[in-house]
């Protein structure tokens, strides 16, 4: 035992305050082993180091599996052609500008990130380790050595700094700006030596590594000299090299024999670009592709329970936000908002829309998948009596008529219909209109957007590895996507404290306060957080899919 303490003491003496705090939390039993590995990775401790600490504390050192991926490959045979179906990119594929699900999958074929988020577990990738300063306002990343771009030039710390600086410079109109705003400004990445890059943040941020991970899908590392034209030369450090690309049609990749990591198993990756999910599922059924990047429960009914296909399910924070205008009657009374939220039978919604492949929402963006989420906050369930009594307390006992505008995508129209029917049970008569994305978003600024201006508005939000964006833009007083027009100084203060918090214990304590406040105020109804699904032919394994949409097929064996 004394030896163990001494070993632990030695390790601790070399760790900084934040790292020691994580170790404290683990030793005090406030976080379990799995969580310890997760948090430890965020603050930059390596897996061997974490294992050593677990052993020193008397536990078994096996790292918990992330569960983000299907069966791991590696043992498969090399050779053959793998056929993957990806949604057609809506714009030119460019890591700086692209924002759609097809483009982000294509970027990640040859491009790689500093770290990869698999089920909120950060795995080192082009960075080997990272660590914050004492208040988490400066983060230092160690860059993997011996990595080359697919044209043979070595990747350096300069390339890393330039790639991130390119994204944070407003002049480049990068799509990552919305994530970096308030976090990382122009030119705040600096290569301090050949293998170290230092990031000086706008404000302390305990989750910063997520901003440089696959969660921020634009953040792939490109040569410092890159100025555009990604889909001509497909630069990057990844396991594939591009040999042909026909925009909107197809792409061909071959194994990159100079790849620094495990070499790709298939000789060739043939990507078909499809206009929609229906044609992707048909192509899988017709044996024209082996893997479909993403399927949904509503769109892939035909293959969901068919043993000829394998569905890979990743828990995610993807959700829908049903906002109610807190600044306009009748929703300026929180009791009315609570009443509408109480009409929804969430268990039934999750079964009906997702065959259970979804978590329940509790009217805050803290999805159950986030470790910061405080699960002791009571779950809101259907309660029509309470809903009616809240309505009458608010002076609306006879009910009222209102309007809901919803976006036309995936299951949203069906969900909107469920909301309409549920609300009618307490006399709330909702007129529903479903608009296509272009009309719905409009100019996406207040006063010129059905999304942001409607009395009730229903929109889709994609997965994020940390809830920071969900907490700020749609809910903070100065948020740019605040469709609920929710303005609450107490809330704003809590979110700022939450974002700056580095250790899980304080993050959770702020999370609990935020969850409780939002459950009471109910500016937005969050009914579910559904899983990210991919599909393959049965018998294929080794697909790595992230809830963000990256689809790595290089360890799938088809030979």
């Amino acid at each position, binding site marked *: 035992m004394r030896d163990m303490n001494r070993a632990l003491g030695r390790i601790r003496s070399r760790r900084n305050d934040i790292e020691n705090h994580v170790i404290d939390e683990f030793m005090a039993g406030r976080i379990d082993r799995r969580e310890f590995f997760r948090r430890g990775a965020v603050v930059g401790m390596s897996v061997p180091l974490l294992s050593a600490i677990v052993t020193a504390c008397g536990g078994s050192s096996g790292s918990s599996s992330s569960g983000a991926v299907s069966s791991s490959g590696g043992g498969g045979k090399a050779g053959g052609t793998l056929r993957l179906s990806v949604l057609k990119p*809506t*714009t*030119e594929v460019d890591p700086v*500008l692209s*924002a*759609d699900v097809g483009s982000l999958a294509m970027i990640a074929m040859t491009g790689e990130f500093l770290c990869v988020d698999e089920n909120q577990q950060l795995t080192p990738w082009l960075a080997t380790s990272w660590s914050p300063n004492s208040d988490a306002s400066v983060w230092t990343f160690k860059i993997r050595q011996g990595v080359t771009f697919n044209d043979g030039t070595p990747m350096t710390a300069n390339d890393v700094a330039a790639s991130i600086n390119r994204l944070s410079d*407003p*002049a480049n*109109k*990068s*799509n990552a*700006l*919305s994530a970096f*705003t308030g976090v990382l400004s122009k030119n705040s990445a600096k290569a301090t030596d050949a293998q170290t890059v230092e990031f000086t943040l706008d404000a302390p941020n305990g989750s910063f590594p997520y901003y440089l991970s696959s969660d921020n899908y634009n953040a792939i590392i490109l040569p410092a000299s890159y100025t555009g034209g990604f889909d001509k030369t497909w630069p990057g450090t990844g396991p594939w090299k591009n040999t*042909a690309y*026909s*925009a*909107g*049609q*197809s792409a*061909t990749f071959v194994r990159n024999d100079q790849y620094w990591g495990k070499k790709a198993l298939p000789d060739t990756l*043939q990507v*078909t670009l*499809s*206009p*929609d999910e*229906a*044609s992707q599922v*048909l*192509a899988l*059924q*017709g*044996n*024209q592709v082996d893997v479909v990047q993403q399927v949904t429960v509503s769109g892939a009914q035909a293959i969901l329970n068919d043993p000829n296909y394998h569905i890979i399910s990743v828990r995610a924070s993807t959700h829908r936000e049903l906002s109610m205008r807190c600044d306009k009657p009748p929703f300026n009374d929180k009791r009315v908002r609570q009443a509408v939220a109480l009409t929804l039978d969430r268990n039934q919604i999750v079964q009906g829309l997702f065959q259970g492949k979804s978590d329940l929402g509790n009217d805050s963006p803290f999805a159950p998948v986030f470790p910061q989420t405080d699960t002791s906050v009571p779950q809101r369930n259907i309660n029509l009596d309470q809903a009616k009594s809240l309505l009458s307390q608010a002076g609306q006992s006879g009910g009222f008529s209102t309007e809901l505008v919803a976006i036309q995508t995936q299951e949203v129209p069906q969900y909107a219909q469920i909301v309409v029917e549920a609300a009618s049970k307490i006399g709330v008569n909702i007129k529903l209109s479903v608009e296509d*994305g*272009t*009309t719905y*978003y*409009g*100019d*996406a*600024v207040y006063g010129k957007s059905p*999304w942001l201006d409607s009395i009730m508005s229903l929109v889709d939000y994609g997965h994020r590895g940390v809830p920071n964006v969900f907490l700020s*833009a749609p809910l903070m007083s100065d948020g*740019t*996507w605040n469709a609920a027009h929710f303005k609450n100084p107490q809330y704003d203060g809590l979110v700022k404290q939450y974002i700056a918090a580095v250790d899980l214990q304080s993050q959770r304590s702020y999370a609990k306060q935020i969850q409780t406040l939002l459950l009471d105020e109910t500016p937005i109804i969050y009914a579910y957080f559904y899983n990210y699904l991919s599909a393959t032919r049965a018998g294929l394994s080794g697909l790595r899919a992230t809830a963000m949409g990256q689809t790595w097929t290089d360890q799938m064996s088809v030979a």
Partner: protein
Amino acid sequence: MIRFILKRLGLGLVTLFLLSVIVFWSTTVLPGNPGRAIAGPFASEATVKAINHELGTDRPIITQYRSWISGVLHGDLGESYAQKRPVSDMLREALGNSLKLAILAFILVVPLGIFGGVASALNEGKWVDRVITVGGLSAAVMPEFVGGIVLLSIFALWLGWLPVSASWPPGTSGVEQIKYLLLPAMALTLVLFGYIARITRAGTVEVLHSDYTRTAYLKGLPRRAVIYRHVLRNSLLPTIAVVATQTGYLIGGLVVVERLFNYNGVGQLLFNAAHQKDYPVLESTVLLVGIVYLLATLTADILSAALNPRIRLGSDAS
């Protein structure tokens, strides 16, 4: 004849000009803007403004139109906003694909439709006639995607004879490509068969009842000779007109079929451009489709005249 063609072409140019103005104007009425479409709903307003400025879509609509039309008149169709590729390249690819599909569809549907129509007319009122007429019309009024899905289910999913998607992998030979195009071409055959058979039937019935056909029979010509020499030649006139006018639909109107079969023709290009607010692509594609319609109807008129000496194309014919 030449005067007629020139006059029609002149009027066509006016139509195309008006078309381009209407499309340009209507893009300003639609919600959203190209910068927003490219950057996505979650991009900041500053980013969207910067993109619009770079594209020039923040200029007054008249200025934008003037710079676009002067480019077109100089043979420069511009660059796609979304794909950053020359519009002319995108148009050429899409038109090539559309032509391949249209030609295969014609090869299938024209002989079938004519045969069906003639068989129907020769058996006027009998069950053969009823089956062809009712069957053809039912298929024609069915939405394209319904027929397409039925064909897909049978030939691609159930029997596994034909590919689901019409997009062939790179390096597929010309003959192999036909296999990929067969299903969408069959779907189009379902749509067009009814029209062609119906028109052929009407023309044939009319000719069968005409005096000269009766004369031909009376002077002792065998039935086969009457049908080939007199009936078909005269009854096919309206059919040719229908077939020619369908060219426009086959080149520019196949949004649904192309989407269902994941085929990159003019229809998809048009759809995506409208969706993405990719004005240079949208404008040029609309113009292209307009030109195809113009040429198709003109060809129909000229063919009718060539085949029927009674039609004289002159100043009074237009």
